């Protein structure tokens, strides 16, 4: 589209591009700095000689981290919590959303209202903690997976998606003698891959990044996920090795941030599409 460009308009366009360049710098600088510092000499980092580009290249910090068994254990814990959580969430959410998409099903409204109400009001942190405790889930993987199993927002997104699928396909399968479960598995799910991918990715990234449930429900070191390990070292100030000094700890912290974030930033360019899609479906009133 060609616009008649007045002077004011041109000034604005230039200004806009400048603002964007500043934005790029502001957004990227912390991430670039963290990476540079993680591969720099620790004395140079803490004395302030590293400001943007790495100096005194070394992989010392990474070697220390990779030689630490706690890092490996917490990494494995995060991977397994994320995988199990995502799998269970997808199964339970899809199984619940499918009947809720059937407008004629008696009782559907009651269950929808029951789910929607939890978005407005909740029992709160302590009563939920007590339930998890009473069920004997503390210090097990289930304390991480079960309390956040179904996200109401995601449930509604999935239901809206299922509702939009052509009914004829399902009817045809039913006439051929398929029960509802078979229809769901053979017809509905294969058609719902975009929404499944979006919600699966949301759940996975959310679980990978979460720390609070682990903080209150797990107190056994061997169960700690990566984020708790990170918190203890980055914020609570515990050291990764007994002999490391303050400046060495600094580069170790940066290297840990990189190690913990890399998987997500690596897949990010490929999954961005699904996330944007997810936000938009969520935006449509269900």
């Amino acid at each position: 589209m060609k616009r008649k460009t007045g002077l004011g308009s041109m000034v604005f366009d230039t200004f806009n591009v400048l603002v964007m360049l500043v934005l790029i710098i502001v957004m990227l600088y912390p991430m670039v700095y963290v990476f540079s510092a993680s591969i720099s000499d620790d004395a140079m980092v803490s004395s302030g000689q590293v400001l943007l580009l790495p100096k005194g290249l070394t992989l010392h910090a990474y070697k220390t981290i990779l030689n630490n068994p706690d890092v490996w254990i917490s990494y494995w814990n995060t991977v397994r919590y994320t995988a199990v959580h995502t799998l269970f969430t997808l199964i339970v959410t899809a199984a619940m959303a499918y009947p809720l998409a059937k407008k004629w099903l008696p009782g559907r409204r009651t269950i929808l209202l029951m789910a929607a109400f939890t978005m407005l009001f909740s029992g709160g942190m302590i009563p939920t903690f007590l339930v998890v405790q009473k069920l004997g889930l503390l210090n097990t993987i289930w304390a991480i997976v079960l309390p956040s199993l179904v996200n109401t927002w995601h449930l509604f997104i999935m239901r809206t998606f299922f509702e939009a699928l052509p009914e004829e396909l399902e009817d045809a399968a039913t006439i051929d003698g398929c029960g509802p479960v078979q229809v769901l598995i053979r017809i509905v799910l294969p058609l719902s891959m975009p929404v499944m991918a979006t919600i699966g990715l949301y759940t996975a990234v959310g679980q990978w990044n979460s720390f609070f449930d682990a903080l209150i429900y797990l107190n056994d070191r061997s169960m700690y996920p990566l984020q708790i390990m990170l918190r203890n070292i980055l914020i609570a100030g515990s050291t990764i090795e007994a002999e490391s000094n303050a400046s060495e700890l600094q580069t170790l912290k940066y290297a840990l941030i990189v190690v913990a974030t890399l998987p997500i930033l690596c897949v990010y360019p490929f999954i961005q599409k699904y996330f944007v899609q997810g936000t938009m479906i969520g935006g449509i009133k269900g």
Partner: protein
Amino acid sequence: MARTLFVLRKHKALYLLMLPGVLYYLIFKYVPMYGIIIAFQDYSVSRGILGSKFVGLRHFVEFFVNTPDSWKLIRNTIMLNVYDLLFHFPAPIVLALLFHELKIRWFKRIVQTISYMPHFLSTVVIAGIIVTFLSPSTGVINHLLVRWFGIEPIMFLGLPEWFRTIYVGSEIWQKVGWGTILYLAAIAGVDPTLYEAAKIDGANRFQQVRHITFVGMVPVMIILFVLNLGHFMEVGFQKILLLYNSMNYETSDVINTFVYRRGILDADFSFATAVGLFQSAVGFVLVVTANRIIRKFSDTSLW
């Protein structure tokens, strides 16, 4: 009764499919709501909800009257939210308008992709970056301040007057880019003939932005505003939990962090539940009221 049984049997498979999800809601959402009763009891784990003594509103009195910090907690919760609404809420609106006005498509795509990235960093990583960057002895921010402006290093996280700026500033840094997505979708949904009509009527570019693009974003703003109010009482409490320390409690300690300390760390279950109930009740009233007001004055509402 017979009819209910008949319906249940007829659609047995569908109801069975829903069962795990329904159980989840009952056990992890509705049982805790029932558990709120302990806010009015002297709950002890060994005696349970049925056996614990009923004490009425004693814990609420304890919080509002006998806890010297209670007003500080409420004030901090409100102030962090007010700052967030003032600075963080408008930021993606402005950025979406600027994105929309970018002419060069590849440049627009790059800026967008970069601005979305911080959204994927975890709260712990963000807080970790803040803590290490702001360190008075080894942090890069203080190194830069010393080098460029010659100021003495500032102990940012030890000074209460800096906390709100750090909190809201990092919130904007992490979420502003991602926050534009919904607004850009709203802009994309604006009827293009409106722009044509405006041009014929002689509207210049800025008038078009103000009267068409901006107006197209209003429904999204309203929805997001009401949703924000829904989280008003919670604030970004997980980030606060990672950033606060006894030196900046004066501005950083909020209701939820207090509930965490008293409930989880001190195992003072009844008292913490009472404080938490106050918080959720206020949050509930806020959303319902906001939604009612909005429904009265516009076509957009949450329900």
